């Protein structure tokens, strides 16, 4: 096996050992070792196996040179990277524009309108402005969940100007997760507004499995940004909102968001227990307003001093 390492050192001789070059060397080393082991398994002598593995490798000088100096590589101007020539992000955006499919837009408007209508009906029913039996409320919630799930799933499955579509099964997973969470939240809403308590047994598993599905999909999500967009972002620097540019602001936003919602929830419970549940939900309305003001201020506010 020592021969593989010696031959590899020869191939990398005279190249400045930057981290990227070392990375490439280790990668090639592992592959050569595997190939040499395969040859030895067929009965070759270790030294011959190593020699043959390195011979089969081919000419890696170009790859090594590129790893040593990525900026000066021929691959940087390969035909796949056509966007390098654009002067600005806006120009690149225009050249790579993907129009949404008309059928998708029409169905999105339809699904959005029906989901919003069902949610409005549910809220009216929950607040007592509309007398509705529990069965109807549950039906509206499930209808809204179906709509929300469809909107989320079909949206991530669309190709956009900057994003590739999410594969079908994962998109369906995102839709299912959204539907589960919305239906779970809706049923919780029915329970806390004097609905039958047994609905909790239905709501809890829906909420938990929806959240778990979201977490699982989020943890395994891989890149879906298009190559031209990655290149333009690397070249022209900051694109996107303040949270992309300023992770500290994003962290502060996360903490403040948690504070707002935990406070709203505590106020909701305290007011509900002390003064009755009829008006305690106002705590969430106040929390929502505070949250939106915070979002507007932090996301679109000026850069950090």
């Amino acid at each position, binding site marked *: 096996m020592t021969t593989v390492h010696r031959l590899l050192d020869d191939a990398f001789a005279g190249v400045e050992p930057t981290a990227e070059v070392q990375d*490439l060397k280790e990668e090639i080393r592992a592959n050569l070792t595997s190939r040499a082991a395969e040859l030895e398994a067929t009965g070759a002598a270790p030294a011959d196996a190593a020699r043959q593995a390195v011979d089969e490798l081919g000419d890696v000088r170009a790859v090594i040179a590129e790893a040593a100096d990525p900026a000066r590589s021929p691959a940087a101007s390969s035909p796949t990277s056509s966007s390098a020539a654009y002067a600005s992000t806006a120009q690149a955006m225009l050249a790579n524009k993907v129009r949404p499919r008309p059928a998708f837009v029409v169905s999105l408007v339809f699904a959005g309108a029906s989901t919003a209508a069902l949610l409005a009906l549910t809220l009216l029913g929950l607040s007592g402005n509309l007398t509705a039996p529990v069965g109807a409320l549950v039906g509206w919630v499930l209808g809204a969940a179906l709509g929300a799930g469809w909107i989320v799933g079909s949206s991530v499955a669309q190709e956009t100007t900057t994003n590739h579509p999410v594969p079908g099964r994962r998109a369906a997973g995102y839709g299912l997760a959204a539907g589960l969470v919305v239906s779970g939240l809706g049923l919780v809403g029915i329970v806390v507004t004097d609905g039958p308590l047994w609905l909790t047994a239905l709501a809890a598993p829906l909420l938990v499995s929806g959240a778990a599905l979201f977490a699982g999909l989020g943890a395994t999500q891989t890149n879906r940004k298009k190559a031209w967009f*990655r290149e333009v972002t690397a070249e022209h620097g900051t694109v996107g909102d303040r949270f992309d540019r300023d992770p500290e602001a994003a962290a502060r936003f996360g903490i403040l968001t948690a504070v707002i919602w935990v406070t709203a929830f505590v106020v909701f419970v305290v007011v509900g227990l002390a003064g009755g549940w009829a008006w305690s939900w106002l705590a969430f309305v106040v929390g929502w307003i505070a949250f939106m003001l915070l979002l507007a201020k932090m996301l679109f506010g000026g850069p950090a001093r």
Partner: protein
Amino acid sequence: MQPDQSPPAEDAFSADLLRGHTDTIVLATLRRGDRYGFEIYKAIRDATGGAHEIKEATLYATYRRLTRDGLVEAYWGDESQGGRRKYYRITDAGRAVFRRNVAAWRATRDVVDTLLTDKEPRS
């Protein structure tokens, strides 16, 4: 570049044509699960019956390009002995590009088939 010597008649295979689709072929080998370089190389070699292969040197350049474009992600395995292996995982962007390239290849292949065979084109 000098013109290649004409291949023997029984060797009806265009290595150049294969090389032109290296990116898509590598993406195809990663669709069923993560692999490291030698596994990818072996999958391609075995698929062509061992007679033809894409040079490993070519593959390293391909891995770098695919990684830069966000079509695959690389990560180091945790082998306890021997060198650590660099594994590649296909991303959602990689799957989308793969699907598009396969569709383009099929369409091109059909046109070439139609043009190269004697049959009258279907009307």
